[in-house]
């Protein structure tokens, strides 16, 4: 341990290169939706010769966007608007949201909702 701490770690300094690329365009949004389970297989998003006809792709995309908007309490327009892109850029866990929220959780306990107090 002391050896580890005494060694030089400048190679590990956070460099500006290590910023996540903002999700700001259609392609990045498609990758996001696919990566986190909001859309079907990669093929639906990535341009591929045998991919489904243009109309289907557009429908699939807007349907996936709509689903994502709904759980994030955004207007389910199916459009990649600024609010939707902002939601995609929020810090998140990398596990896909594949299983949409499980059935409604157990009914809340009787009595006031407890606020977390410092342990």
């Amino acid at each position, binding site marked *: 341990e002391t050896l580890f701490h005494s060694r030089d770690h400048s190679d590990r300094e956070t460099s500006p290169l*290590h910023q996540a*690329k903002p999700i700001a365009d259609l392609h990045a949004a498609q990758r996001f939706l696919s990566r986190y389970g909001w859309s079907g297989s990669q093929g639906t998003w990535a341009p591929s010769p045998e991919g489904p006809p243009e109309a289907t792709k557009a429908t699939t995309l807007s349907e996936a966007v709509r689903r994502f908007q709904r759980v994030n309490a955004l207007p389910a327009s199916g459009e990649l608007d600024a609010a939707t892109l902002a939601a995609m850029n*929020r810090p998140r866990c990398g*596990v896909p949201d594949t299983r949409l929220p*499980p059935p409604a959780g157990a009914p809340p306990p009787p009595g006031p909702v407890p606020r977390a107090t410092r342990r």
Partner: protein
Amino acid sequence: RRFLRMLLLRPGWQQEEPPDGGVARAFSKKTLTWRLVGEALSSQLSVEEQRHIFRLAFRMWSEVTPLDFREDLTAPGPTVDIKLGFGRGRHLGCPRVFDGSGQEFAHAWRLGDIHFDDDEHFTPPTSDLGISLLKVAVHEIGHVLGLPHTYRTGSIMQPNYIPQEPAFELDWSDRKAIQRLYGSCEGSFDTAFDWIRKERNQYGEVMVRFSTYFFRKSWYWLYENRNNRTRYGDPIQILIGWHGIPTQNIDAFVHIWTWRRDERYFFKGNQYWRYDSDKDQAYTDDEQGKSYPKLISEGFPGIPSPLDTAFYDRRQQLLYFFQGSLVFAFDVNRNQVLSSYPMKITEAFPAITPHNHPFRNIDSAYYSYTHNSAFFFKDNAYWRVVTDKDIQQNPGLPTNGLFPKKSISEQWFDICDVHISTLNM
């Protein structure tokens, strides 16, 4: 889909097909081991701080599930159930590359590996800045245990990081979600009691308040009846919360409370201790200068020891002492056992439903001010004693009868052990 298939097909990984196609538990054993991988430390926090935060994260899940978590620094890597590590970009042989500071901050594999993106600004629980490593760790451990994302407000399993005050806890629904996978916490108690204390409110009026305690081995929980759960951060060691009484395996507690008397006694073996509520410590001597602990046979003539348990009936001003299949009723005013005792517990407290009775060796007898009833605990079950009010509503009920048994965990929630190595965190 390929990624998910990889997640689920871990050799030896426990995948019980969930009945409703929902979530499934990931482990079938009670004690799971974890390790912060030595070659994957964060460069932002000291190693000890990283390990302490992870120890607390595991303990928080252990406080609400029958699972225990133990840090294992020596076993061969592949045998450790959950391995945690930090990395940047392409890391630790993981096919899911991290994206740098912002957006994805961590991910978990059902294989039991948890990776944190060290490009994120992870901070300790005391900090309001950055991303709380504790919150992220609790979230990712939730995944490894089998919980998916949910968008329910207040849940620790929301996919996005919710910056809020650093103090956070697992809420009711998260607790029930994990208990649907691993069950509720069961187990017997050495003693359970309501601790009455008088306080003055802002108008100077005397208020009587009570706190409920459950004791087991060398630790205890305070139970918050209004919140239907134990106090956040419990269990803690008896040694820490109580001063001057035995630090484990207490047999019984009674609170003799009349117009003239307000005495609290702990019993263990053949001795008993009196506790001073105001000073929050055991008495060392009585009014005559005789020292505590004292022999039970001296203070309570005719009462045997060691006891199974005891409780005080304020209505009759009787102490009931239980040993084996017998019960002794002790008159606190005459300081003697009633002439008709000892009696078989089955006679003094008859079963309402035939054969539905603890019969002997009761773990704990608990009078609850929340329920205005006495309960007998044995193993995972409780029997409620018939009250005057029950008899008013149903005159056919026997005095001091016992209603059929129920499971303790259906009445008192989340009284869960933690691994001994995290007990005094």
